[in-house]
């Protein structure tokens, strides 16, 4: 793997993620709903669901969700930087957004990188797959539980076989 160029590794990991996603669509899902106690800001409940009890430690789960909540809070923060961005955009009749990315979008990218990293390090070895809330309209954080236990989302080869067998069977 050390001899492969970086682009190939990225392509491979992307391909693996696609395979994992296909397996995830066949697995059972656990949903973490939004927490509206602080208003309309994006925040997810940190209460540990019983269905994940056997798969992951409570502390790891809470750590992930707290970090996600922090990211979202930072994105929706009303302060100096957001005012500057808003005023500049208004002054240019919002044309500036054709060239520039909003702060919110930049933070969403950081969040998807974080989720990918968390999946690789923590969740996939335990047979779970964490889905980015942005793909679910920010309604839920979903954990896909593989049927095969911790080995389910473990490696691309194991992700391959359920996909192929489903294609062959009519």
């Amino acid at each position, binding site marked *: 793997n050390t001899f492969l160029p970086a682009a190939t590794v990225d392509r491979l990991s992307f391909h693996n993620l696609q395979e994992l996603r*296909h397996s995830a669509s066949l697995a059972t*899902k656990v949903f973490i709903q939004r927490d509206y106690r602080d208003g309309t800001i994006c925040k997810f409940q940190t209460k540990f669901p019983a269905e994940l009890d056997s798969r992951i430690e409570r502390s790891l789960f809470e750590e992930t969700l707290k970090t996600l909540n922090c990211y979202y809070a930072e994105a929706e*923060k009303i302060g100096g930087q957001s005012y500057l961005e808003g005023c500049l955009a208004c002054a240019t*009749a919002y044309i500036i957004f054709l060239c520039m990315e909003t702060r919110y979008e930049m933070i969403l990218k950081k969040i998807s990188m974080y989720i990918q990293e968390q999946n690789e390090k923590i969740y996939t070895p335990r047979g779970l797959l964490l889905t980015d809330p942005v793909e679910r309209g920010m309604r839920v954080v979903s954990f896909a539980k593989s049927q095969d236990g911790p080995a389910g989302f473990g490696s691309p080869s194991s992700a391959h076989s359920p996909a192929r067998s489903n294609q062959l069977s009519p």
Partner: protein
Amino acid sequence: MHLGVEEPIRECQYNQICTHNSSPMDTPHTKKKKIKRKWQVFQGRNKFYCNGRIMMAKQTGVFYLTMVLILVTSGLFFAFDCPFLASNLTPAIPAIGGVLFIFVMGMLLRASFTDPGVLPRATPEEAADIERQIDTTNGPSGPGYRPPPRTREVLINGQTVKLKYCFTCKIFRPPRASHCSLCDNCVERFDHHCPWVGNCVGRRNYRFFYLFILSLSFLTIFIFAFVITHISIFLDGCTVLEVVVCFFSVWSIVGLSGFHTYLISSNQTTNEDIKGSWSSKRGKGNYNPYSYGNFITNFCAALCGPLPPSLIDRRGFVQPDTPQPAAQTNGSGACPSNQVQSHMCAQDQCIQSTKFVLQAATNPLLHSQTVILGGGAPLQAKTSLGGPCSTLGPSQPSLPSSIPGLSCGGELMALRDSEIHCHHHLHHQHFISPEETPSPPAALPCATHLGHHVHPAQLFDPASQDSLHEDSVRGLVKLSSV
């Protein structure tokens, strides 16, 4: 109104004739199948333009009226009044007018074309999960028992807010969200549906809407004032039209701007104000939990706050393996057109198997050579086959010795001979008896026999040969039925 999906529901059938999925004829067919963008399968009653970049409501007639009114009035002003005013008063008048006009048009288009903050509908799994949660909360319902309305209560900033369940979108609406019946979508921080703008006004386009009406009121007052000035100096037919339009616009637009200025400063939506959700008349302790306390912060938050991106991902591609949202009924994404494919598949099999049979009949040795050469040590394989070749004959009683050039060539030839035998029989409409039909197990003893001399993997792959053989036999059977 459902957009995009015109294909009828196709049933997934198992067709016994079509045996294999990886035939080369399949791949061009699947490549032709178009991958749809998400806006084409969007479930709300919205119209999309420019391949999903522009999103509007279904009824856009009044929006065009707005455009016409603004363009005509401004056009008449610039054409007839500005030359007079520029020469008599100051050229700054048309300049300021021009800037205002451009700003008004920009804000109008932005408010009309932007996604107001539509919440995508729940996936089937999410909907099922919520149903489960509701059932466990409410308990089992007996016959004749009316289930209570689906609401959840949450404490926000000391105020109890009820979250309602949306039966169309299958979600619990976030606070301040509402379902627009015209667009059939749940919209975040729903203000109102504006026909003049041709879209809902929600979280993502409220600032554009507000800036539009604010700048339009300035433009209207500007034009009105200078037109009156012009008329007082010199009366003109076109100018009178402008006066009439501006007079009526001023009252409505300026009034609306004032109303929304009040709403922003108290951080309320039109929806909440009309319902009186945070009115003190409802109760003593009733207050707006979303307000920041002072009107400056409320203003800045509404106009200069962060702009969240669209949640519906209009231009993304529909993934074939992701579950479609609950309300969608057809499964065209999940189920490929198997009927057409299998029909094509069977024909292709016939064509292929016929080709195979004919090739085998004309060039038996050449064919066997090409298979052997596929692995390593071809020459060795060839020479070693000479030995077992003669011993092969008696083990296959169905081999017709009359067919020339077929006594040699090893395992492959045994298969080919049997095919030709079948073919020969088919043409004479003989029923193929089981012992005459070459069955895959018959090929295996030959494989093990040859294995002594040559590495089987180098020579041929029995499994692939068997499947090919099977395919060609099935193809022949199909041919016979034509």
